[in-house]
């Protein structure tokens, strides 16, 4: 509690900080809340028009997925958004992180289906059992997110390129190294440098 209070004084009040930083994401959190509480199809349609084109771009960014599968993925993810909206907790995650996570999981499952993996597990089963979120930790998470937004523009192009390969194209470090004709160590260190620059790493 005491630490949360100190945080409060540094930044004005917690609420004003939230209000000034999260306006864009807030619109989408509200959509999800409406979908969850009222099965609001208009809110869902707004959400679809914004996120479906991003999901499609995500699906196609690896250039290994056919257009048909990309469309299938868009439908699958958006259907999950509708079905899982009640599980969305605006205190814990931003709407875009929540959707991204669903899209990532659905893509993983689709690849495993296409490769005929015989597994009882779906990608979402790998979400660890969660502790109740602590307010101070959540505040830090929100700040970290804003910092990533701000610092992303200043990332050197070679680091940004590798992050895109790993996160959006879904390439392993080794695959990214082969594709860019770089030693594995260089790829790993570029990812690590980017993570440092974006101040994502927690000291431990």
């Amino acid at each position, binding site marked *: 509690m005491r630490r949360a209070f100190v945080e409060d004084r540094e930044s004005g009040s917690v609420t004003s900080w939230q209000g000034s930083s999260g306006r864009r994401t807030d619109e989408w959190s509200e959509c999800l809340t409406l979908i969850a509480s009222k099965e609001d199809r208009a809110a869902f*349609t707004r959400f*679809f*028009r914004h996120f*479906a*084109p*991003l999901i*499609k771009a*995500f699906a*196609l*960014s690896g250039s290994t997925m056919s257009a048909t599968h*990309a*469309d299938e993925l*868009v*439908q699958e993810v*958006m*259907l999950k958004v509708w079905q899982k909206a009640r599980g969305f907790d605006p205190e814990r*995650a*931003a709407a875009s*992180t929540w*959707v*991204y*996570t669903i*899209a*990532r*999981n659905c893509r993983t499952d689709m690849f495993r289906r296409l490769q005929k*993996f*015989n*597994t009882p*597990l*779906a990608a979402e*089963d*790998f*979400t*660890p*059992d*969660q*502790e109740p979120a602590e307010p101070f*930790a959540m505040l*830090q*998470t929100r700040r*970290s*997110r804003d910092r*990533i*937004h701000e610092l*992303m523009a200043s990332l050197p192009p070679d680091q940004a390129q590798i*992050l*895109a390969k*790993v*996160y*959006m194209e*879904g390439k*392993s*470090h080794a695959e990214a190294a082969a594709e860019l004709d770089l030693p594995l160590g260089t790829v*790993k260190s570029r990812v*690590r440098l980017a*993570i440092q620059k*974006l101040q*994502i790493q*927690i000291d*431990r």
Partner: protein
Amino acid sequence: MAKFHPDIDLLTEYAAGIMPLAQSACISAHLNYCPQCQRQTARLQDLGAVLFEGLTPEPVGEAQLEAVLARLDEQPPLSYSRAGSVAGGRLPALLQRLMNGDFSELVWKKITSSLRISYVKTGDPNYEFALYHIKAGGRIPEHKHRGSEMTLVLQGGFSDAAGSYHEGDFIYRELDDSHAPTALQTEDCICLAVLDAPLRFTGWQYRWMNSFLQLRAG
């Protein structure tokens, strides 16, 4: 609280969804013991979300929207319920599910007088996913790895030349590290091990067993 953690490279691969299935299961299990790595992973996932928001949108036709709207009344598929986890069990739900319960449900194969191994099916064709049961004070004969090995302590603990490990601790080894772990004296130790190449015992008394230790992926 866990003292040994996956490094940032591994957590990034996990968060980006590019890690092989069996290894992901091991990292996920560590996260159950480790709020710190959970927070780190959440941040790495936020990075993914920021990149995702920055993508150049690909046009999606109205027909797609119509198709999804028409499916909204579908019954959602049944998903695995976490409520079904063994009550009071500290084992991560994902492991309980893979094992169909707890350790007593497994079939154990005796390797030495103090080591038993149980192979668990994950569906990952390239990695073996196994539980090691080492008797209190028992030692695993010195061995090497040709590939990589992830280890997670689930019960009790063990030590080797590099340190001593307890519940929730995660250890990652690559290529030709040779070690001989010994379980703590106080209780039996159970570890999860994820391998992409079989163990190789190095001592002459145990070498004959190597032919029995082919990789059991799947």
